């Protein structure tokens, strides 16, 4: 990943994380604020319920006191023991007093008249005990068993006493849809009532002023928990797959006169507002995030342009320097760190250029000196016999004229031999200076290796030499490469000669081929004396040799051949552990096409 992309990624990530963090924090704050608001609204609604409860309780008590003090109750009290004639009185009075429940009960607890269950006349009212203790108490919650199920009501007990006769008036109002509808509910809230907190959950019992509760079974766990613990509880209910339909449901137990839970008030608070707000926050975050990322792209592009262009120029200049163009300079466009870097780069290339010039000059001098030394050394050996022979001829002519003829013949032979040596020396130098250009043709490197091995086969086991074990480890299926077979043969031969020289005591010579990536690899390994690290460094310097009678041109020639093929030569060696020369050659197939084109052109021009 380049710097520009890294910069873009960094900018985008920073913006994304920032927006995400802000959105998360805002959502968190919003949720907490909503929960606080929800709690406050629930508390307010519970207070409202309590107020409404108290108001109805006072109303029930007021109406019951009116009934107990009325003519009908007095008449009934006076006629206790005469059961006829009161059947519908309770219902009639309850209707006139707008009570849902009304019963007249004598001192023994026998129902005289009942509005809610007229047929119960003569039966004992077992729902309340010790009526006398309740006549001065405020209204309380009580469950009432009706023919169509259990309902919850707000009841009070009052007494009509005539003489020694006690007539209890038990009445109340039903906690039903009407009661719930009288609550002043804030938007998004609703109140439900479950009037039987003792016998499990029955969906039919749920009282909802808005109608029938849909999916009532979802309230069952909450109601069962409150029934079990007797404590308020909260649950989050998901009514549909849309989170906006979720509702926080508070369940508050409603105790009766003996503090047993009789019913459960359910206060639902819709999460629609919160979910919509959360969605708005998420949408805004996405919008801001998207815009931020767009801005980040623009900013990063601008910054990258500002920052990376000089860096890219520097990189290009560095590549140029690496390619050998030490004259490369970059534009210093700013005075910041990048500008300083560019100036330093320019100074560096200038200094490198100067150093290179000096080095080239020094190397040239050194090369000339080495050449002179080598020439002096090479020429000195044949010249010394030449000098001695000529001096011997002169001395023989003066001192022994009769022997001169014979000495002349012998000396002439010596002179010719040495002169030939001189010519050979000169020819080798000439050969090095006149290395031919490769003649490209398809070449099987395995064939080259085999050819060289065959050429030297006789020397591996020659008398007077230690035995050399030559091993060919040639990879199969190597495709032909474009090369000059003769030059390649010469290079491998030189390396093989060096290997033989390195193993005066015999050893193993391994010729190996293989492929690596798109290149062909040739290895010539011996188990000879090996090279020192310094020798390895200087090995390919022209005229360097580690041998007593070497010209120092062998490896230079090898390197020149390999270089002309676009390849690379390297050496791995360790003193006493042998040496391995590695030749890596490209396939150079384009050279064949170029040559074919040249041949075709040449043939065309020849015609």
């Amino acid at each position, binding site marked *: 990943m380049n710097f520009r992309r890294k910069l873009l990624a960094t900018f985008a990530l920073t913006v994304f994380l920032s927006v995400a963090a802000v959105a998360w924090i805002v959502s968190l704050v919003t949720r907490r604020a909503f929960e606080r608001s929800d709690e406050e609204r629930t508390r307010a609604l519970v207070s409202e319920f309590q107020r409404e409860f108290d108001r109805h309780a006072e109303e029930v008590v007021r109406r019951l006191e009116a009934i107990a003090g009325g003519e009908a109750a007095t008449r009934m009290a006076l006629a206790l023991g005469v059961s006829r004639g009161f*059947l519908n009185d309770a219902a009639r009075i309850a209707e006139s007093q707008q009570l849902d429940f009304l019963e007249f009960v004598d001192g023994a607890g026998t129902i005289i008249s009942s509005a809610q269950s*007229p*047929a119960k006349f003569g039966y004992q009212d077992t729902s309340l005990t010790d009526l006398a203790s309740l006549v001065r108490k405020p209204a309380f919650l009580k469950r009432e068993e009706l023919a169509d199920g259990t309902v919850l009501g707000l009841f009070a007990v009052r007494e009509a006493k005539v003489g020694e006769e006690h007539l209890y008036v038990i009445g109340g109002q039903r906690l039903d849809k009407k009661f719930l509808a009288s609550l002043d509910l804030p938007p998004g809230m609703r109140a439900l009532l479950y009037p039987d907190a003792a016998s499990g959950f029955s969906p039919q019992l749920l009282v909802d002023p808005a109608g029938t509760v849909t999916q009532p079974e979802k309230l069952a766990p909450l109601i069962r928990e409150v029934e079990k613990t007797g404590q308020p509880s909260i649950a989050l209910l998901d009514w549909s797959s849309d989170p906006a339909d979720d509702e926080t449901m508070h369940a508050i137990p409603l105790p009766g006169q003996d503090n047993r839970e009789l019913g459960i008030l359910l206060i639902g608070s819709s999460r629609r507002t919160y979910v919509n707000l959360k969605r708005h926050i998420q949408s805004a975050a996405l919008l801001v995030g998207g815009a931020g990322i767009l801005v980040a792209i623009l900013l990063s592009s601008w910054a990258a342009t500002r920052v990376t262009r000089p860096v890219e120029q520097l990189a290009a200049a560095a590549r140029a320097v690496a390619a050998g163009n030490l004259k490369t300079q970059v534009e210093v466009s700013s005075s910041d760190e990048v500008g300083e870097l560019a100036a330093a780069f320019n100074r560096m290339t200038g200094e490198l250029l100067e150093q290179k010039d000096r080095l080239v000059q020094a190397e040239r001098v050194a090369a000339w000196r080495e050449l002179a030394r080598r020439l002096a050394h090479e020429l000195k050996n044949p010249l010394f016999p030449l000098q001695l022979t000529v001096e011997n001829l002169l001395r023989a002519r003066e001192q022994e004229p009769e022997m001169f003829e014979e000495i002349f013949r012998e000396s002439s032979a010596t002179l010719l031999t040495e002169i030939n040596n001189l010519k050979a020396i000169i020819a080798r130098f000439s050969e090095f200076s006149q290395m031919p250009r490769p003649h490209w043709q398809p070449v099987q490197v395995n064939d080259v290796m085999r050819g060289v091995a065959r050429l030297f086969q006789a020397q591996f086991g020659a008398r007077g030499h230690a035995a050399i074990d030559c091993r060919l480890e040639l990879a199969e299926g190597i495709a032909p490469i474009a090369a000059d077979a003769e030059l390649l043969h010469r290079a491998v031969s030189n390396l093989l000669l060096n290997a033989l020289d390195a193993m005066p005591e015999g050893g193993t010579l391994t010729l190996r081929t293989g492929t690596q990536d798109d290149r062909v690899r040739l290895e010539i390994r011996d188990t000879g004396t090996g090279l020192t690290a310094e020798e390895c460094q200087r090995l390919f310097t022209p005229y360097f040799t580690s041998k007593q009678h070497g010209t120092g041109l062998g490896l230079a020639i090898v390197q020149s051949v390999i270089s002309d093929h676009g390849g690379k030569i390297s050496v791995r060696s360790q003193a006493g552990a042998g040496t391995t020369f590695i030749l890596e050659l490209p396939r150079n197939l384009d050279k064949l096409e170029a040559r074919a084109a040249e041949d075709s052109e040449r043939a065309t021009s020849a015609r």
Partner: protein
Amino acid sequence: MRLSGFPLLVASSLVLAVAAGADTRPAYGGTLHVSVGIAPRSLDPADTSEPDSIGRRNLMQLMFDTLLTVNSQGRLQPALATAWQAEPGNQRWHFSLRNHVHFHDGSLLTPEAVAASLRTANPGWKVLAAADSVVVECDAPAPDVAAQLARTRNGIAKRSTARNPIGSGPFYITDFQAGKKLALAALENYWGGRAYVDAIEIELGRNGRDQLIALDLGKADIAEVPPEQAQRAAGEGRRLVTSAPVELMALVFAHDPQSQDESKLRQVLALSIDRASIENVVLEGEGEPSGAILPNWVSGYAFVFPEEQNLLRARQLRSEVRQAPAWDLAYDGSDSLARVIAERIALNARDAGILLQPGVAPGAALRLLRIPLASVDPRIALASVAGFAGLPAPRFGVGSGDEIYQAENAMLETHRVIPLFQLPACYVLSPSVQGASQGRAADWHLEDVWLKSKLP
């Protein structure tokens, strides 16, 4: 006594004019206003889709004559038929028709018209018209044919699809709004003598409260009052007329018991019901607790069937049955008395270990029904109850008292019917209504009623 024919009417009017101011003397004229709870859609006496009731019968009697009538002693009296005779074997009956009787449209009441009317009402009979009589032939011995012909459902009517049936009764129809109103006018040349009032306007489908209000406001002269409110109405100073018990309130099972256990459970239910308390409190003393199907005034032996609550015996029987199913007890949702009684019966049954679920579900296995007394003839009355209960009609030979008792007892032993109460029909009258003497069978006889002058 009523006068017959126009000359007598004129003469009697003169006499009455002379005697003006004497309230106890009958007077012609005026419109009688009646308010009733029934709301008939049809005025055809033979229309079986209309529920039978005392009120409907009284309406039909105003417009349609029967061949025979039954007096307060339960004896058959001539009406359109002046004489009747059964051939040996009681399969063939001869009815001699009264002459010179006309339908309300002026056409003569002929044997053919009578035969056609009876064939419509009794598809199982073969009715033949003779010169001045009709002959009824039955497939089997039918000793009760004459009594059947006294029922209002056998009122003689001339039917056509375009209009209401036309009768020959003391009043003819001037306006009928189905379920709402019926207006009648007195037939001047009625064979039994012109009615005292000129017209009757009957408000139909009025609940008890509206009827009493109409009476109190002077908009009605006669109104029905439920038995349980009769004493209160009387206590409030209204003129109350009460008949003998003419309606059976009973629990009726839809099916025969499927096992011995179920029979026992039905006995448990019958024994658990505290009829006395219900009669005392719910019915406020009106009506008679009854363990019999027929009222005592009809059968004479109703007292032999026990009606007292026997909770001890009920629980003992209940303990002999391992499991008791819950029974739905259906009652008429528009009948507040039935609702209270059903709920009370459920409470009583629970005390004995039987669970009853009162409601208005029509398909319930147990129903609380009001069954009007079909006739003062016990054979017809028993057959009618059997029809309500889905039981086969009892067959009678000579129709002796023992025979009737055996038939009723057999019906009770099927445990399909649990009698509860025998209820009377009660009416309140405005002060201006004179001459009203409701019979034991709750028949109105409004043709005998006259209105006291409202002028001082």
